[in-house]
Each structure stands twice: as C-alpha cells, then as structure tokens.
C-alpha cells in the first residue's frame, strides 16, 4: 500500500512541477511570438505600403490622412507603369547586365579562388592580403576612381561600363577560397594519381563540392546587379543602357516635376517581384552565403 501511495504522491509532485514548467513555456512562447510578429510587421509594412499605394488613385494617395485600405483598386496603374517606363526594355537591359556580369564574375572568382587555395606561387599570401586589404576601402571611394578611369577609357554609356568595373569581387573570391581550402588535400593528390590535370580537378571535383557556395554567389551577384543604383545612374544616361532602378526613378516625373507615385509604386512592385521569387525559392542558398561569411551580403 505504502508503495502505491508513494508512487501517487510522486506523480502528483511531478505533475505540479510539469504544470509549472508548462506555464513558463507558454509565457516565453508568447513573448517570443509577440516579438516575432512585431518585427514581421515592421519589415512587411513597407512592402504592404508599396502594394496598396500601387493601386491607389493619385488623389487618394495625396490625402492628408493616408488610407491603410485603398478605397478603390486601380490595376490600370500597372499597365501605365509598363507603358510609361518602357519597363520591358529596362528589364532586358538589367537581365543582360546581370547575367553577363554574373557569368564572367563566376569564372574570375572560381579561377582566382583556385589559385589562392591550391596553387603555389611566390607572393601568394602577400597578394591575397593585399586583395583583402581593398575590402577595407569603402565602395563609394571606388566609385570616384572608377568613374575617372572609365571616363578616360571612353566607356561611358555602354554595357561594358556597367559590367566590367565590378567583375572582380574580393569578397566572393575570399568566400570561395575558404570553401576550397576545406576540401582535403588528399582529394587533390588522389586526383593527380588518377591522372587529372589541375583544371580538370577544379571542374570535376572542386566545383561540384563547392556548388552551394557558387549558387549563393550567383544569387547574390544577380541581386546586386538588379539592385545597383548609384553606378548605373552615374555612367549610363543614354536610355539604351539604363537599368531598372534608374528607369524607375526617372520615368514617372511629368513636365511639371510632379511624380506619379502610385504608378511608380506599381513599377516598383513589378520590379521587386522577380527578386521576391528568387528569395522564396532560393533562400536556403542566400542565407548560407550571407551567414557563413558573417560579414556582408
């Protein structure tokens, strides 16, 4: 008898303890979720604002007390956006610059990362340190010197000027080199004995093994090209070479200097959509690329 008694007492104790634990768990969960919801609202709100503004009429947009739910939904803004801004052309330009610069940049990144990770040559470490050193210089400073350089080359208003100056990314080289260095030396030796050249080893072994990083780099580079603003604004004034961000800025200003913001917002929504898709489907790689390095994206 006493033993069953003991058991039930013990169980009761346990239950009390566990109920106390449950309460604590619920409280902490509520707090965590409240925080997350708050952050989500803060982050989502600008996008929401973009979307509702893009369907408002210009008069509704200019109300002194802004409406959070549009009174009427004007999808015609989207059609206007396409027509006024020549979005198709801008899309194609941006896609072209993005693809070409990503492709060339990948080739350069892979080859230099391979050299820094695997080849032995005099001054390798000094050269790599110098390259890393350039990361300390703020990008804005490069803008000025790059501008002077491309100007003297006579490259203004061309695709070359949009692509070439940013082909080499020290950060990506660094990222990929670290990745390459993690591949054990024995694999290289094994491949040598198996009769491969350096280039074939790179292609057959290193690139497949570093594929997640390469995908991250591709996505980040594409996003960078898609989002770039200052440089294209400086060097490409000819409409033939304008990229999407600049197009958005300029296209919706009428002769009086007024900006038709709802239409501009519609255009922004259109432009953001591909990136949104990229993020949804490839976020695994984006996060990996950004978080592994822990420096910047």
């Amino acid at each position, binding site marked *: 008898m006493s033993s069953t008694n003991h058991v039930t007492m013990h169980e009761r104790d346990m239950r009390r303890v566990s109920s106390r634990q449950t309460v604590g768990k619920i409280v902490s969960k509520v707090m965590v979720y409240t925080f997350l919801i708050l952050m989500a609202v803060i982050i989502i709100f600008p996008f929401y604002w973009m979307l509702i503004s893009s369907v408002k009429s210009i008069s509704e947009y200019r109300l002194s007390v802004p409406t959070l739910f549009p009174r009427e939904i004007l999808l015609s803004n989207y059609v206007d956006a396409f027509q006024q801004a020549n979005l198709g052309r801008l899309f194609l330009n941006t896609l072209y610059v993005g693809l070409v610069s990503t492709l060339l940049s990948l080739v350069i990144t892979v080859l230099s990362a391979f050299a820094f990770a695997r080849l032995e040559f005099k001054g390798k470490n000094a050269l790599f340190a110098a390259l890393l050193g350039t990361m300390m210089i703020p990008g804005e400073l490069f803008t000025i010197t790059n501008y002077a350089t491309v100007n003297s080359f006579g490259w203004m208003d061309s695709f070359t000027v949009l692509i070439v100056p940013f082909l080499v990314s020290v950060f990506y080289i660094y990222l990929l080199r670290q990745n390459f260095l993690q591949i*054990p030396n*024995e*694999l290289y*030796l*094994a*491949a*040598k*004995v*198996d*009769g*491969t*050249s350096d280039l*074939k080893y790179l292609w*057959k*072994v290193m690139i*497949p*093994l570093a594929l997640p990083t390469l995908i991250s780099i591709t996505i980040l580079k594409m996003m960078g090209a898609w989002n770039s603003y200052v440089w294209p604004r400086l060097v490409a004034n000819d409409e033939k070479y304008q990229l999407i961000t600049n197009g958005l800025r300029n296209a919706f200003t009428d002769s009086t200097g007024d900006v038709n913001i709802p239409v501009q917002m519609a255009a922004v929504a259109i432009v953001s959509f591909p990136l949104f898709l990229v993020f949804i489907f490839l976020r695994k790689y984006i996060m990996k690329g950004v978080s592994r390095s822990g420096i910047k994206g």
Partner: protein
Amino acid sequence: MKIVLQNLTKVFPSRNKKAGEEVIAVNDFTFEIPDGKLIGLLGPSGCGKSTTLYMISGLQKPTGGKIFFGDDDVTELSAENRGVGLVFQNYALYPHMTVKQNILFPLQNLRGADKLSKEEMLERALYAARLVQIDNLMDRKPSELSGGQQQRVAIARALVKMPKVLLLDEPLSNLDARLRLQTREEIRRIQKETGITTIFVTHDQEEAMSISDLIVVMKLGVVQQIGQPQEVYDDPQNLFVAKFLGTPPINVFDGKVEGGRLYIGDAAVLDVPGVADQEVTVGIRPEGFVPDENGPLVCRLNSVEVMGRDVSVVSSHPAAQTPAIRSIINADCKVNSGETVSYTLKPHKVLLFSKTDESRIYFEVK
C-alpha cells in the same frame, strides 16, 4: 613490374628559415623491389616511409636519386603520367560521386592510345568492384558506406586502371581491430590475384609481418634492414629493429661478456663463444625464456597472465631496461607462485648488441 630505388633521398627545407635546419626525410634509399611482391614499409611515425611512397607515386619529387619502373627511369615523370594506384589513409574518395563514378574516374582520364570506350570502362569498373566485393554498392555515395566499404572502394579505384604499382598508405589504420584482420587478408588475396607489385606503409609491425613478402624497416629516413619478415624478426641487425618487431616486444637487459660467458647482473646466464669481453645490451625474445627451478636468470615474479594456449609471465629484474619483463611460456609449464621465477634461456632467442652503436654482436649458437 620491378621497381628500383637508387640512392633515393628527400630533404625538406626547414619551415623556420632562420633556424636553417633541413629535415632529411629519406636518406640514400637503395632497393630493388622484385616483380609481383608485396612489400611492407615499416617504421615509427616520421621515419620517411610515407615520403618514400609519395616519391614512388610521383606526388613528391626526390631531392636526389632515381626511381625506375622496370627499366624506365620515371624520376621526372609526374604523378598523372606515372600510372600508379594509390590508396590513402583516409581513402580520399570523391564525396560527390557514387561508388561507380569514383571507380570510373581514373579511366575517364586516360588519354590517347589508352582511351577506353564507355562499355570497356564499365566492364573494367565492374571487374575491380567484384575483386573487392562491392559490386552491389555501385550506386551509393561514400557517405553511405562503412569504413571498410570505403576502403574497398578506394582499392578498387586504385586497381581499376591496372596500375604497374599499387601503393597503400596506412590502409588499415582507420578500421576497427576485427575489420583490420579481415581486410589485410583481403589485400593479400587481391595482390596475389592481380600479381601487381604492391608497396604498403604501416607503423604496425604485426600487420606488416603477417602479409608482406618482404619488409623494409626504416628509422629517421634510413633503412635499417630489408628481408623476409621471419628472417628480420629472428636475425635483426641492430637494437632498433629488434625492439620494433615482435609483440610483446623484446626484453632488453644491461649485461656484460666475460670470458665467453654472458652475465646479466651477477649471474652467468649463457655461453657466448667468440665474443670479446665487453659491456653489451642483451635482447631476449619473450619466447626465449624457459622456466627452470635451477635456471641462472632469477627474476622477481609480478604476475601471471593466462592466455589459454600460452601463459604470459610478468616479472622484473634490476638489470632490465624496462620495469616489466614479459615472457611467453607454454601453459603446460607450471610456474611456481613464489616470490621469484628462474629461467634458462634459449640461445637463439638471445641477441647481443654493442653498447656503442647498437649493432648486433653475433655469437655461435651450439
């Protein structure tokens, strides 16, 4: 194919340039490895055995000397073109490829006249896989294999291009004890079946002795002795080789020779005719002790370990260089459980070494 190493030397420059010290990893190694034999390169870590292997494979360039495969001087030939098979200690399988792709990989790199059709490649890969009994695992990735299976894949990959030489770098050290025994038999069988001249590196003397046709014992880059395992065990040329071979290891005593008799402590334990009077180091194999109540070598008895067939007697003696003397005796011989144990010695299991240079001092065994 026979392999000839001629005055092979490898010097590594010092890491620390100021110290300027060079490391001589392999020093003047000359040896002819007969065709179709299994050679064990044996020595403690840092003795240059792996370096020797890498030089034969072409992954490291010798500082001096030459390497011949048959009559061809391959010293300047790079690893890609040397046509050797190499199995690494950690197997070095390509992690993103399946077993089949791993085995096919060396074949896909063949050029010119050696180039194979797809069907021939598959056939060869399957043959190699069957040889090591992994033909049912062809579509797995290395991460889905056990250590032993990975090791077999590595051997298959090394064998598939039918190399002139198969090199194995500590092939068994990542396997558990049972698998190690099994795999070393397997390596022996594969080597016999293919008849490929095979060199394998190990620090485990038991491993080397059990499967090698010839063993090469190295120390600090210098070859100490080359010979058949039993021959090297029975007749070591110096104290290092004697100490390195054998489990349990040889028991070492300080002794002296006076008037053709060997003394350990004050006791004359053995007649050693033909040896000049001198201080000597005495090595006695564990199986060289015969328990004998009236035996001259009296040791303090510490413990008796029963191993079934044999008995291992642990004792101590003031003249011994190690705290414990281990002898292996037949379980039929009764060891009295007193304070001491007395032995007579089997003359051919007693080895004398010079105190000055540790070289062997021979005496006539009656």
